[in-house]
């Protein structure tokens, strides 16, 4: 069994190698043209990777399980609903569309409210079994997704075009001005969330024990929900939804880095997530020469992994 510090060094080296490979491999034509673009993409992947890993691990601690993630529960679909509703009700000339910061703020507030309602409704006193929550989350995701397409069909075609450019985010189409905003947000979340990590360590002992040990449980839960919503909103706005990334990286981190400390878990999951995104994109683009985006592949692998996790859990339970 390797020490955790050795594992971190290995993960960091792999991550750096992939980042360098992605940034410099086979640059043809104008270096001055291609290089800055690649840098923007790599930066977007790093920000997304960290945001998803961070929010997933915190979310899984407060919901006390390792299968639910904010994305699986449909929180990222909420981003699309909010954007569509803004365009539908206010139109593309509205200040809430033109001003990026205001737009982002409204989206985040709506997502936080949605996350709180979901939490109050679904996790109230552990009444519902986990599979029911999962299925409900997926169906809520489907419902929100269909609502979005419903509104998009009846929206004015001109508004729709403008909405489309906002919603079709991907790694190939990163908006630079959004990247700076997300860097600031990510930094803010780290400063704000950093103080809570020790409380989260205690909270993994369970609600009653944690409260006995002097943790203000409900307050931390509220903060985590707010933080995860902000982080998911950031990554969705930047590159669009990647449903299963959080699930894969958090579970790999639990397995690889044996610790209860959230600071280490989050760091490990973030590194794995960067490796998955940058390494995956590198392989897809330069080694296999595919047109596919990395999200499709992550959803494919993630789906299989998800079924594997479910079957494993059910054996333990049954």
């Amino acid at each position, binding site marked *: 069994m390797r020490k955790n510090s050795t594992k971190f060094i290995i993960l960091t080296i792999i991550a750096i190698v992939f980042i360098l490979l992605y940034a410099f491999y086979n640059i043809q034509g104008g270096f001055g043209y291609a290089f800055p673009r690649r840098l923007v993409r790599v930066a977007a992947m790093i920000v997304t990777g960290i945001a998803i890993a961070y929010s997933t691990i915190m979310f899984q601690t407060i919901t006390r399980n390792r299968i639910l993630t904010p994305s699986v529960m449909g929180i990222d679909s909420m981003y699309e609903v909010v954007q569509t509703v803004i365009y539908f009700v206010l139109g593309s000339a509205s200040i809430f569309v033109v001003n990026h910061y205001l737009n982002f703020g409204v989206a985040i507030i709506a997502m936080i409210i949605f996350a709180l309602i979901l939490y109050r409704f679904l996790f109230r006193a552990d009444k519902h079994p986990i599979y029911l929550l999962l299925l409900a989350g997926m*169906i809520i995701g489907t*419902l929100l997704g269909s609502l979005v397409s419903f509104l998009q069909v009846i929206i004015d075609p001109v508004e729709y075009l403008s909405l489309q450019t906002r919603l079709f985010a991907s790694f190939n189409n990163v908006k630079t001005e959004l990247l700076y905003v997300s860097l600031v947000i990510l930094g803010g979340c780290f400063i704000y969330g950093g103080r809570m990590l020790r409380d989260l360590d205690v909270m993994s002992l369970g609600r009653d024990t944690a409260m006995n040990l002097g943790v203000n449980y409900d307050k931390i839960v509220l903060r985590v929900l707010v933080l995860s919503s902000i982080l998911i909103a950031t990554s969705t706005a930047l590159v669009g939804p990647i449903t299963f990334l959080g699930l894969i990286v958090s579970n790999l981190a639990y397995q690889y880095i044996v610790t209860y400390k959230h600071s280490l878990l989050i760091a490990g999951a973030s590194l794995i997530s960067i490796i998955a995104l940058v390494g995956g994109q590198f392989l897809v683009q330069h080694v296999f020469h595919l047109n596919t985006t990395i999200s499709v592949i992550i959803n494919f692998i993630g789906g299989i992994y998800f079924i594997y996790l479910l079957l494993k859990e059910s054996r333990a339970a049954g």
Partner: protein
Amino acid sequence: MRLWMLIIATIILSIISLFIGAIDIKPSDLLDWDSDKTQIFLMSRVPRLMAIILAGAGMSIAGLIMQSLSRNKFVSPTTAGTLDAAKLGIVVSMLFFTNVAYFQKIIFSFAFALIGTFLFMKLLDRIKFKDVIFVPLIGIMYGNIISAITTFLGYESDILQNVQSFFMGSFTLVVSGRYELLYVAIPAVILAYIFANKFTVAGMGEDFAKNLGLSYKTVLNLGLILVSIISTTVVLTVGVIPFLGLIVPNIVSIYMGDNLRKTIPHTIGLGIVFLLICDILSRLIVYPYEIPVNVTVAVIGSAIFLVMLFRGKAYAKK
């Protein structure tokens, strides 16, 4: 709810469905046999109504058979990968043949739907933990994985847009000459009715069914073939109609029980009424334009399914 109520509702809704649309047709216009309006009526409105009736009846019966055979209330073409596999089949047929003929699409789609559903049933055999919630959860994930393959193939061969427009479920394109494949659903539904008693017995479990002298394997295979035929014809002519096979049989079984011979007429009736209502709504909301019917069905269907999940847990466990 009695059968005659469903029949009256079907007749009233059918008449409404026949007389709404972009061109105003009054019953008196039909007296003139050679007029344009009569032609439109016969070429577009009547085929559309027939397509709705056939698709509504077919999808609900397909769901009913699957629920009976898998002994799980929440298994349906939507939650067992059948529809996704049928889609994959169509995409594969487009890749194999440059000028794919309609007949080849049918064969491929049918074969994939059958194999996909069969594999899912095999997977179910392996799972010891047959929870009513757990099984559809696995099924939805299974469908997502198949869809990821479809998207991947679509991306790689640049037919994604073609594929997406193809599956946008809609009765808009149904005119005479383009929907007749749906009539295949009629013998399938009749066969389902003839074998209804056997499906009911098979639904009591393999050992029990064998004890009663039933050739379990034959009945199971027949059921899966019927489901695949119905799903394929619906997907190929009007696109994917989600949730219909899931919620309609469940609503009927709440007040009618699980004897298939008794419930099949009600299931057909309710399926048709439900789809007619959804289609009429889709046509009226943005009149004279239309919303794709699968979007309307998904919004209403997923909402009903969520209610069933939380309210009907006690009932579903029976």
